[in-house]
């Protein structure tokens, strides 16, 4: 007859071993969280996670490149003709209407990092050309030709006032 409080009971010992292992593993997991979390961006880096831009000085047709989170962001003030041309075009291999890519048709705001391997494209008359592998983007930052798979990314941004743009928060 087996008593459940028998010291020799092997199933009881297995249970204790399992419980010890599980509690120990959970403890190690919880204890390592502060260490893992410490590797995330620090408070000062997070503070710099938005960039404010003064739009008053940008003339019609002019491009301004600003740094946001260490990445270049292109701000292009488009002429009415350019806006009309972009709204008429469906884009290239990653089609998207121009209206979905801008908040105000005049202002195009895109992250200036080629979606292929992360180079910074150069501004040309028809849009942008990546110096690395020749991807071509239009005035809406949409990919037309070349190895890049996607359009230039649109960062979260909002207009604080007519002449003030905040990048990093929608």
């Amino acid at each position, binding site marked *: 007859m087996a008593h459940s409080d028998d010291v020799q009971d092997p199933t009881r010992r297995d249970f204790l071993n399992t419980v010890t292992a599980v509690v120990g593993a959970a403890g190690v997991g919880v204890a390592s969280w502060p260490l*893992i979390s410490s*590797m*995330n*961006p*620090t408070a000062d*880096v997070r503070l710099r*996670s938005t960039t404010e831009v003064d739009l008053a000085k940008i003339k019609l047709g002019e491009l301004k*490149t600003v*740094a946001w*989170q*260490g*990445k*270049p962001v292109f701000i292009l003030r488009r002429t009415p003709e350019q806006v009309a041309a972009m709204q008429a075009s469906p884009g290239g291999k990653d089609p998207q209407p121009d209206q979905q890519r801008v908040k105000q048709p005049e202002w195009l705001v895109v992250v200036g990092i080629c979606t292929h*391997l*992360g*180079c*910074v494209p150069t501004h040309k008359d028809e849009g942008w050309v990546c*110096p*690395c*592998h020749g991807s071509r983007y239009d005035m809406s930052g949409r990919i037309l030709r070349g*190895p890049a*798979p996607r359009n230039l990314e649109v960062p979260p941004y909002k207009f604080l006032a007519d002449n003030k743009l905040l990048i990093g928060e929608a």
Partner: protein
Amino acid sequence: MGGPIVDWIDRRFPLTSFIKHELTEYPTPRNLSIWWNFGFFAGFMLVLQMLSGLFLAMHYKPDAQLAFASVEHIMRDVNYGWLIRYLHSTGASAFFIVIYIHMARTLYYGSFRAPRELMWWTGQILLLSLMATAFMGYLLPWGQMSFWGAQVITNLFRATPFIGDQVVVWLRGDFSVGDATLTRFYALHFLFPFLICGLVAIHLVALHFVKSSNPSGIDLADKDNIPFHPYFTSKDFYGLGLFLILFCAAVFFRPEFFIEAANNIPANPLQTPPHIAPSWYFLPFYAILRAIPDLLGGVVVMTLSILVFALMPYLDRSKIPGGSRYRPFYRAMFYVFAVDIVVLSYVGGQPPTDSMALVGQAATLIYFSLFVFLPYLSVKEEAWLRKRGLPPAVVAMLASEDAQRAAAGAQR
């Protein structure tokens, strides 16, 4: 042996018996060729990298504002700083050359086969650790290639399902490679060599348990083994002399050969260099990454291209000993693989045009087909070789193995 002090130690610590067992009486096959020197060279390179790295660390500053200038400071102002830095930068390439030859020898002579699977696998973990160490070290000079190389490679972790973007930010400690990334890479670059030392100890314990393989692939009789010391200590050091002549020639006459010109420009997050390529020792894997048009697919296939080596003890099903020595098919496959690696390295270093991509995809296909067809080809080859007739020593070895297997079967 040796005096009262050694006696005193021997009563408390197995000093003399350890030296006897692992060095002066450690049995080593007498037919080891120069290709068996490369494990020793790898150990030497590890020590040299840790030593030169330690002295660089006394002058280097892991801060995005100061790093580039502190490397120039080492090059210009520190006594012999140029020598220590060139030893370290050339040493990284020399380390990979040595390790790749060490691996090629293992593949060529079939040294990965039973009972040496654990040597092969610990070696593979060592290779991955070495790659991680080299990659993190490459960021430290904070030049354009350093920066953009780290940017492109950390970007690969975006392929992580669901939390890819968070993983990349966590790895970098910033939204793009920045000061936090540099500092943590420096900390890990300093730590990893110590982990590598521990792994090397495991690798060596396994080696001294199963003993060295040899070019014939046949387990030698006792009379064909000779003590490691002085025979192989002298052979290893002789080889090291030859190796150091070549290494010093590179350090003193072509130190910039292994340093990309673009890395003499300080890191600039807003401008990419016209062409980004990783260091030469990553090129074949970079070519495989780019051969797959999809990011996640590319990362998976590139990882597989390194991990697939672990399966070699099971993929190679031939019982014929000695790897390529007695096996013409296997030898041919080895050379095809070697040429394929050279082609992949070339493709990985070129700008990705359409025709280059095609060559890269073909070479990637060949790379994996060699592994996929090895089980079938190795069995076919063994049957063909047995029919054609084998050298007497090999026949005797196979017969004794068959007898052992039959005896084991009868017992059961």
